[in-house]
């Protein structure tokens, strides 16, 4: 399998919302390439007819009764907010100017 390039690492960093410096990209590209080469062995089983396991427990759709119960107060929920306004989380601009 092909290794990972510096450009791919830059793309991954963007997808993962990590603003990396150029020297960090160099550093991580080498390390990620080593790791991916080491773990690529798993693809030895890619052709085997084996069902995937995503979880150790065979549970599906665990439900609880749909009942009203106490929850965090707005004050508690906002207690760690970097910024708040009118009992809401205040965030930087999300949409463009237009």
């Amino acid at each position, binding site marked *: 399998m092909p290794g990972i390039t510096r450009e791919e690492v830059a793309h991954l960093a963007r997808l993962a919302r990590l603003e990396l410096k150029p020297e960090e990209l160099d550093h991580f590209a080498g390390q990620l390439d080593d790791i991916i080469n080491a773990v690529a062995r798993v693809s*030895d089983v890619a052709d085997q007819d084996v069902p995937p396991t995503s979880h150790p427990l065979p549970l599906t759709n*665990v439900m609880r009764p749909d009942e009203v119960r106490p929850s965090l107060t707005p004050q508690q929920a906002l207690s760690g907010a970097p910024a708040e306004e009118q009992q809401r989380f205040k965030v*930087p601009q999300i949409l463009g100017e237009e």
Partner: protein
Amino acid sequence: MTDIIRLTAADTAAKIATGELTAVQVAEAHLARIEAVDEKVHAFLHVDREGALEQARAVDAKRERGEPLGPLAGVPIALKDLFTTEGIPTTVGSKILEGWIPPYDATVTRRLKEAGLVVLGKTNMDEFAMGSSTENSAYGPTGNPWDLTRVPGGSGGGSSAAIASYQAPLAMGTDTGGSIRQPAAVTGTVGVKPTYGGVSRYGMVAFSSSLDQGGPCARTVLDAALLHEAIGGHDPLDSTSIDAPVPPVVEAARSGSVEGMRVGVVKQFRGEGYQAGVVQRFDESVELLRELGAEVVEVDCPSFDLALSAYYLIAPSECSSNLARFDAMRYGLRVGDDGTRSAEEVTALTRAAGFGDEVKRRVMLGTYALSSGYYDAYYGSAQKVRTLIARDFERVFEQADVLVSPTTPTTAFAIGERADDPMAMYLADLCTIPANLAGNAAMSLPCGLAPEDGLPVGLQIIAPAMRDERLYKVGAAVEAAFVERWGHPLLEEAPSL
């Protein structure tokens, strides 16, 4: 004071119950010990002196009123800093949560308080539990009490170092790939990863949700069992929590025996990369099991050879998704919000500033493994390996009641030695990872010191899911036999700090 801190949790609780000691005396003795040695060890990120004394006073008042006390009432405990604690900082060893005060308690925290345990504080850890040395903490490394220039293992190095240095008799850890057992092994203590789903994950900051499992850290097998019982059991707040009674772990720890048990030695867990002294102590442990009446069989788990690779795809994949919640919007660090930048830019700047290198590596690795074009080859294959590993376990548990192996291939390595070599670091979890992938219960307990470096070696015991009591039954027998052979618990050979 020295005597109090060296008591087991079981004995401490007994003395508090009879009035020979008060919970306040016990808390004060441990707080004094922390004050005296933690500058050197750096096991704690936060010590809650006032809260601890208040909890201790409540236990003493309860006793004075003649109310019944639980089996661990008044016993101090340290919590790995990823269990949320209402009103007490929880950092997960990361700058991104520096100063965050959770508005709620984890289920584990709540159960411990209800059982009358006294929470001393929060312990150091690799950031987001990603690491095997505690060097990835944003708040500096922790020293191994056996040799402060060496790592205490990780990610729960703070918890294991705290109990190994008598700063607490009990601690809570979490184990995603070995983060309870590997630190226990290299510090000469006992650590248990319960069956997946055996202990609630509610209020544990998530790393890899299908692998993470909270569990006990202690100095004796019985103490670990008492803590396991206190925290275990169904929790409606965790949808992956098993709705069944806690296995009879305390009863098993009180009646240790391997008489007539079949013990499987996993063929795959030896060879290249295993330190000679580790192999020697492991072989002696197997011999001891035989002397104690166990039937030893060699078992073959060929898929285990792929476990490490599968783990380093599955865990990063789940972490890349879980850590998306750290977006600088609702809690934690926010960097660069100067009115000109978009939310997306602020998120990216914050994550770059708030996450350390290992977290960044794993988030990117997971993003890669889950991306279209690579998903089938990497994440899909890793999930198949997981099935094969579960099948290996299923097959060999027909031949053996428990499996044994060294917990880690080597003893504690030097601080800095593997810090910038991720693959070398990952090898520390070689023997512990299969149990996480399949959801089995597993324990590490001390089995001696490696002759070449005088550092502790851990024996790992693995049991089928929901048969956690077998760990304690075997562990208690092995522990008793070793203590008799050595003439004292292994930790008494640790240098005084």
